[in-house]
């Protein structure tokens, strides 16, 4: 179990992570979602012991993680800086990872290099953005670290490379189960891989939930304004818009089939809310949308 307690990360007067407490059972794939500046990288840096929290603690099976060499050896944190010498060649970077990582699988790393079409002799400084991300993916996967943290390790990758990355991530996790935390903006294309989703908003924990619980969690209701009003009464509204006498509201509510049948009889239509839409609604400033004219 990984336990975050009252975790706060502050840069001067800026609060990046604000009093976050989380229990993360090990052996699962987590998706960390949040808008730009929501504190994802700061949270992950503290989780990986790259940054000492201003307040609070991170514990791995009860042991304080910060500067504990045993915990550090088990943690692989891949961020966009890659934390490698840019003048080094790809092959050299992987060799260093091989020395540092007890679980390193060189054969697997070589197969991943082929998959991502990475030239081992190339210097890191000569790689494109997508190729740098691919090196990060190789480092993260071939390390087989019990705690693997991948911070937006897809930036600049094209659709084919991302698809390969997700397939490898899942296949290698199935063969070697471990804790993987992946931060991303591209929710729709990876949500199926996540067992649980964590959403940060302005440094605060907004939600930590089984991914499957979010599917079908919300609903949109469209119809005559007064009928929509009557149906929506009392349920949390995530968003709304009107056009003439027609109103559409997005509710954070999963109605029973009988409720839907009753609504349909009253002239309402219902639509699903996908995970991406739910995320957008949950993290948008909570001001009412202006009526469309």
């Amino acid at each position, binding site marked *: 179990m990984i336990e975050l307690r009252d975790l706060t990360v502050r840069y001067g007067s800026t609060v990046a992570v604000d009093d976050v407490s989380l229990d993360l059972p090990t052996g*699962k794939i987590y998706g960390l979602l949040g808008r730009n500046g929501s504190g994802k990288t700061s949270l992950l840096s503290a989780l990986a012991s790259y940054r000492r929290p201003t307040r609070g603690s991170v514990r791995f099976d009860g042991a304080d993680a910060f500067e504990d060499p045993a915990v550090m050896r088990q943690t692989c944190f891949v961020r966009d800086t890659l934390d490698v010498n840019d003048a080094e060649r790809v092959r050299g970077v992987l060799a260093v990872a091989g020395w540092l990582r007890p679980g390193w699988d060189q054969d697997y790393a070589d197969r991943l290099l082929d998959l991502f079409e990475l030239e081992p002799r190339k210097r890191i400084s000569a790689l494109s953005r997508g190729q740098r991300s691919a090196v990060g993916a190789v480092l993260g996967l071939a390390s087989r670290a019990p705690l693997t943290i991948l911070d937006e390790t897809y930036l600049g990758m094209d659709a084919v490379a991302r698809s390969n990355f997700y397939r490898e991530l899942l*296949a290698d996790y199935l063969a070697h189960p471990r804790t993987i935390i992946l931060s991303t903006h591209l929710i*729709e294309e990876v949500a*199926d891989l996540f067992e649980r989703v964590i959403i940060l908003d302005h440094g605060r924990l907004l939600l930590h939930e089984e991914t499957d619980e979010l599917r079908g969690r919300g609903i949109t209701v469209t119809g005559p304004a007064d009928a929509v009003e009557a149906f929506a009464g009392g349920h949390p509204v995530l968003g709304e818009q009107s056009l003439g006498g027609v109103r559409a509201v997005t509710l954070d509510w999963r109605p029973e089939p009988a409720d839907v049948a009753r609504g349909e009889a009253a002239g309402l239509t219902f639509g699903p809310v996908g995970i991406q839409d739910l995320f957008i609604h949950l993290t948008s400033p909570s001001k009412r949308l202006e009526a469309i004219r």
Partner: protein
Amino acid sequence: MFDDRSPIYLQIADGIKNDVLSGALKEDEQVMSTNQYAAFYRINPATAAKGFAQLVDEGVLYKKRGIGMFVSPDAREKLRAARRERFFTEVVDPVLVEAKRIGIGVDEIVRHLGGAR
């Protein structure tokens, strides 16, 4: 494949039930393991496991320890009975509602169905 309109574990369960009903999965036939299923459909294995657990709870599948999961001998009959019960309320009644909305009478529907006989 799956959409995110409803929990994936329910979609998995529905998909396997449809395969049992259609005969694509036979009684006492072994189904994919959760890991095979997860790799094939590119979903988290815990989600797949939840779908299979649901089917075991409902008696559609049974487990053989250390071997895998199999289709229950009476699964097809039980599923058919349950679906037949819901057929009129969930399939026919909505058709009648739509027919009424657009002015198609029951007689006209009966004539159409007669042609399909």
